[in-house]
């Protein structure tokens, strides 16, 4: 289905939604004439390839949803003009999307959902939106890096990084994001500039599911202790000594593994706990305690071959 240019004559249009239009490829340029448009939603349009540049002229736009459009590879190179009312951009599941615009001015943006896309880096404009509250990046398997400036987004409540398997470290200064309630994943880095796990210390609002990867790089158990996982409202925890994808041989010190795991005591109401690549000789004392509690529904060990308990 295609749309006629005359759509631009609908001056009062506030909402335009196309869901599951399997053969919609683009919108006419005249869409930029619908100056009252506040909500533009193009969801699950498999063949959608292009968004017309005139969308940048829609100054009243508040909501832009382009969800599950698998053929979309880029969302315009640049947006000229300011989308000064834009509050929500949702590009969830545009699994071909690699490039975000290099410039985009949306000073009031609160929610940006890039989950399940192919983005590799976050462009500079993202970290300049100080109103940003929710940044969804789960399952961005190509995401290599988080920009350093992300720690300046003081209003951030959600920074969901679950399943960002190429992410090898977190920017230091993470502790400044004190409003964070959903982080999803923390990759222990090996570089000097990377955030240490102790930065989680005061992020006590973090809740829900949490993964901690690359624990092999964690040399100092006291840092793990400082993370204070116990104080957080987490009900599901994955601890992994390697990064979540690679299965390389681990050369690590079994004693150290044990100390680290001991220090990463989860809250007592944890329901799901998964541990991968742990080589310590015995289970930590807190786990014995956990086993008594009825809350602990499932504990799963993977690759914990050296652990005598599981031989």
């Amino acid at each position: 289905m295609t749309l006629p240019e005359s759509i631009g004559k609908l001056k009062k249009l506030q909402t335009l939604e196309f869901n599951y239009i399997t053969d919609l490829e683009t919108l006419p340029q005249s869409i930029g004439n619908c100056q009252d448009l506040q909500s533009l939603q193009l969801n699950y349009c498999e063949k959608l390839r292009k968004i017309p540049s005139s969308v940048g002229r829609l100054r009243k736009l508040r909501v832009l949803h382009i969800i599950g459009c698998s053929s979309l590879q880029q969302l315009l190179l640049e947006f000229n003009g300011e989308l000064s009312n834009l509050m929500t951009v949702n590009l969830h599941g545009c699994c071909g999307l690699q490039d975000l615009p290099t410039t985009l001015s949306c000073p009031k943006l609160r929610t940006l959902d890039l989950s399940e896309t192919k983005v590799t880096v976050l462009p500079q404009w993202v970290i300049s939106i100080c109103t940003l509250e929710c940044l969804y990046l789960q399952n961005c398997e190509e995401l290599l890096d988080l920009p350093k400036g992300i720690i300046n987004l003081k209003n951030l409540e959600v920074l969901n990084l679950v399943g960002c398997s190429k992410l090898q470290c977190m920017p230091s200064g993470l502790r400044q994001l004190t409003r964070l309630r959903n982080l999803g994943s923390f990759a222990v880095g090996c570089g000097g500039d990377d955030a240490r796990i102790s930065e989680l210390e005061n992020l006590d609002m973090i809740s829900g599911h949490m993964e901690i990867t690359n624990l092999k790089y964690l040399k100092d158990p006291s840092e793990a202790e400082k993370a204070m996982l116990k104080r957080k409202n987490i009900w599901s925890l994955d601890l992994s000594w390697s990064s979540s994808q690679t299965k390389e041989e681990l050369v690590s010190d079994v004693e150290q593994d044990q100390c680290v795991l001991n220090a990463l005591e989860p809250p007592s109401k944890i329901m799901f706990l998964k541990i991968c690549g742990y080589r310590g000789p015995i289970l930590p004392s807190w786990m014995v305690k956990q086993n008594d509690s009825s809350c602990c529904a499932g504990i799963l060990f993977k690759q914990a071959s050296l652990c005598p308990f599981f031989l």
Partner: protein
Amino acid sequence: MSGMEAALAFGLSKVVGNKLVSLVSSEFAAITGVEKDLSELQSLHADITSWLSMLHDRAMESDPSLRWLIKLRNLLNDMYDLLDEVYLQDEKQRVDRDHGKHAIAVWFCGKPKLLLFRWKVAHKIKAIKVEFDAIVNQKSDANTILHNLHLDQLIQSKNKITREPSLLSNNKESKIPSRDHVKSEIILELVASKKGEAGRIVSIVGLGGSGKTTLAQQICHDDKIKGHFKGRIFWIHVSQEFCRDKLIGKLFEAIIGQKSDHHAQQHMIRVISNKLSGNKFLLVLDDAWHEDRHDWENFMVLLDNGAPGSKILLTTRNQSVLEAVESKAIFKLAYLSVDESWSFFLKTCGWVEEDLSYAFIPVGKDIVKKCGGVPLAIKTLGSVLWERRGINTWRAIRESNLWDEENIEARVFTSLKLSYIYLKDHLKQCFTFCSIFPKGCKINKHYLIEQWMAHGFIKLKKEELAHDIGNEYFDSLMRAGFLQDRVETLPQRSVSCKMHDLIHDLTHYILQNEVVTSQPKNMTDSSQNCRYLSLTSCSGNVERALFYKVRAVHVSGGNPSFDNLVKKSFYVCSVVLDYAVDTPFPLFVLKLEYLAYLEIHHVSCPKLPEAISVCWNLQSLHFISCKGCDIT
């Protein structure tokens, strides 16, 4: 009936008032000269409003002497139509002008049509005035009402009541202890392994609003059930219309989690039986009405593949359904006792008895008693009492003669009527608009709000967005229990809700012949009053006369034809076409010049017609599951 008439008139009057205020001061009014006419209309409206507000305390009486209210309501409807006409003209000029960039005065030169328009408006206002005077002369009791006013003094309750009612919270735990007992008995029955067919169908039977669906939902959320059926729990809303094809579609959607539109029935049956084969499952058939044994057998055959121990949980109001499906395990929901009713009422309001001062307790208990132990009745009326904390209002509700009903069903309905009468005036139209959705249908919150906007039901305050106000209205209706079952779906984070069947009945009871759900066999004068046209699985031509006053159209399934409509300027503001199968683009839409909201499902057209711009007033456009032609 007059009580409802008055309540409806309040709501209507509110909307008319809002429209008037914004129009009188518009530039358009000044230039076209309808300004004076409109101020006349405004003073007329003020009279009506003061009348109605005097009636407020008598509104819940069923009083034959108030029959003139019906006329008043029709009059308000006429005013509403007229104002819309002026408003749309204004809007149209504005849009045209913006387009051509002419100054307003220049634009008006050489537009004799507008003189004609002004004349028309003046003429219509005159007719309204004549009608109003006639009503005034007819009714003699207006003055008596005037002199018998008693003010409702607000008696402060002992402690400040600040807690929010818990109606909104999606609380899984039940607020009725005795229901927990039934729940655990049903759960035992469901997990029991019995040989043969004996215990396969477990049923919950009870009056409308007695909490069958709520109970079934709680059972599905129970950990024991989830564990026993390993999460294979499916839910189908059966509803009054029993159609095997549709049920197969619903079953497919419930089990596979995909839309059923594009699949052939044989394919769906195969997939369903594969999926169920050898597995233990629980299927909830909610709200079953059909009584034909043979039809049921034909449907149940589809479910034979499951592993032993698979169960069906059926809810119904009708005992005969149980015989038709040969259910042996039957749980009848008892009415709540007076004490239970009272404690349920307190819980839904978020109160404890100590929060209420002494005067309120006996009155509240009496009211709750009248609800006959039916949770829905207690809940909706409870939300009214929660909001209106004047003892006189409570007393007035208790003493209403609407309660003079012998049978319990009618009494439950009375409690709903009273809840509507006390609903805030600006919500009344928003609520009755929901009559257009078919029973049991999922209502998308954003779509609903946009439809309210299209009809001008939302009063804009300064600096606030219509959507935000719409959200408030929606939440209020949820709190009042008029909408329920709020669900949020990811990733769009869209919210939908449902309407209880009895509440749906209420909207139709209120609107009478203003809402039409099937094509009348004979057109009568009353069918020309139709404002909301909701057609489910209908086909054939829609009569032009039926369309005369229609403002909203909702088509679900079927393919009714609107080709008979030759007149261009119908005041249709919203159209929803939820076709079940791919259908060509319905061209009648392009005749609806004032259309503000258009939602279309399953249309196939290679290109949306260029002429769509004729609908210059369009504010919302939704296309869902559409595609180009099949021929490639």
